[in-house]
């Protein structure tokens, strides 16, 4: 039996080196579903001890890549030890703003061994995001539903965007009195959408449409 000999953290999670926060999260979830105790695929392949070792390595990979500083140090180590070239570090920032959930992208021609981005697109969450993007107005509840489906906690959005949790909650609960002025709100929604890798333009427009509807109904 081989473990993860010769594989780096990115390879262990089966993600490209420029993966976004969300992709890492998804990949971690996939890895745990493969190697977890209840996994049909592996329950008979590993002993309890082996499984423990494997899960520890996966957790180490996950916690390192989820932490900006630790990840930077790890990436530097990969580059310094010649396991990777420098180009990917510069790619990382570009990747953040690239929406995965895009209204006109189909999922039919995704190959079997889908990479992280494609994996997200083909998942059940894709359906939910399509549903949200197809609406003309997007409520805070829609955003919350998508965030939860993606397994992202509200404090994680906070730690990545520096938007306060109370404002994030106000956005998700459509609480008018808790929302910042429009110019800030616009920017916050954009950041929120970027973390969830859903088309920011659509979200901003949809959300503003939604709150204007609420205002008019008052």
């Amino acid at each position, binding site marked *: *039996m*081989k*473990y*993860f000999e010769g*594989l780096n953290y990115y390879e262990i999670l*089966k993600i490209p080196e420029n993966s976004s926060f969300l992709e890492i999260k998804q990949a971690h979830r996939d890895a745990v*579903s*493969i190697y977890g105790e209840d*996994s*049909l*695929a*592996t*329950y*008979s*392949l590993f002993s309890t001890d082996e499984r423990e070792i494997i899960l520890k390595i996966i957790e180490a990979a996950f916690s390192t890549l989820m932490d900006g500083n630790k990840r930077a140090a790890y990436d530097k180590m990969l580059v310094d030890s010649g396991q990777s070239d420098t180009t990917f570090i510069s790619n990382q920032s570009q990747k953040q703003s690239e929406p995965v959930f895009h209204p006109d992208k189909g999922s039919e021609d995704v190959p*079997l*061994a889908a990479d992280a981005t494609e994996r997200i697109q083909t998942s059940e969450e894709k359906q939910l995001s399509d549903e949200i993007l197809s609406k003309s107005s997007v409520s805070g509840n829609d955003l919350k539903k998508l965030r939860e489906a993606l397994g992202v906690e509200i404090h994680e959005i906070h730690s990545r965007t520096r938007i306060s949790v109370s404002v994030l909650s106000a956005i998700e609960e459509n609480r008018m009195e808790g929302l910042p002025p429009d110019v800030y709100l616009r920017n916050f929604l954009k950041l929120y959408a970027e973390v969830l890798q859903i088309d920011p333009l659509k979200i901003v427009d949809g959300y503003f449409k939604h709150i204007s509807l609420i205002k008019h109904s008052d």
Partner: protein
Amino acid sequence: MTEIYPIGGGKGGVGKSFIAASLGTLIAQQGHNVVVIDLDLGASNLHTLLAMKNPKHGLNRYLDKTVKRLESEAVPTIIPNLFFISSLHCSMEVANLLHAHKLKIISAIQKLPFDYIFLDLGTGTNFNTLDFFLTSKEGILVGTPEPTSIENFFRFINAVYLRILKQTLKRAEFLSAVKDAVTEMSGPTAGTHDILKIVSKYHPDKVAHLKNKLREFEFKLILNQFRKNMDSSLGNQIETVCNRHFHSNFQFVGTIRYDEQIHDAVFSKTLYVQKYPHTQSSDDLKKIAEKITKNRKPIVLPKEIS
């Protein structure tokens, strides 16, 4: 070039014979010359799945030297381009299939003049099954999405690995100390890892060679009897795990959906993919067949002038 695909997978009832018959049919229908060989010695029933009557002879006539060449025993089926070799009349010899006979069968199979050869193997991991599986460097593993079947799936890969390693270690260049150690630790608990460990102790330079031996093999994985509510990512998960934790190359080629009519077809002794070509299960099988032939066009040779 001939491609030989032994079909194994450990557990009984997962549909190895059904898949042999179906893939044989579909690939023959693509225009390739195909033969399916029943090597489930003692429990032959592939002919039934091919909608054929009990064959009168087969491998036995090659082993008792009634015929000189194995291809003389390849009989046509109801599908054009699809041929069949039976082992029905070998069942008497199964208890002690002579090693020499086994080698004779294997080398005759490797010389058969067909585009695709499918070997329908018996259940379990006995030496005959494993050796027939090792007729080729490529094999198909069939399982169902059930814990017991997947367990046997891995057990089968392990058994194949041990067989390869032990065969290699028999060779003269290995110290008898290694051979003894490996023989001693034989048993259900011995694993590839343990053997490689022993070898690295006595022959550190040979470990890479052994790993390369294992790396030469390519396995295609099929999940049969897939039901609606099952997790569709299972096949890909198993592929990922196998590629990571075993030494060879594994490719998941597809699931085959469960269909009640498959049982009906078997009961009425008809060939399912021919009788029901447009069901979801037949569609699944077609996709798998296309992956195996990679949509390669059959080579049409100019007819010989007689």
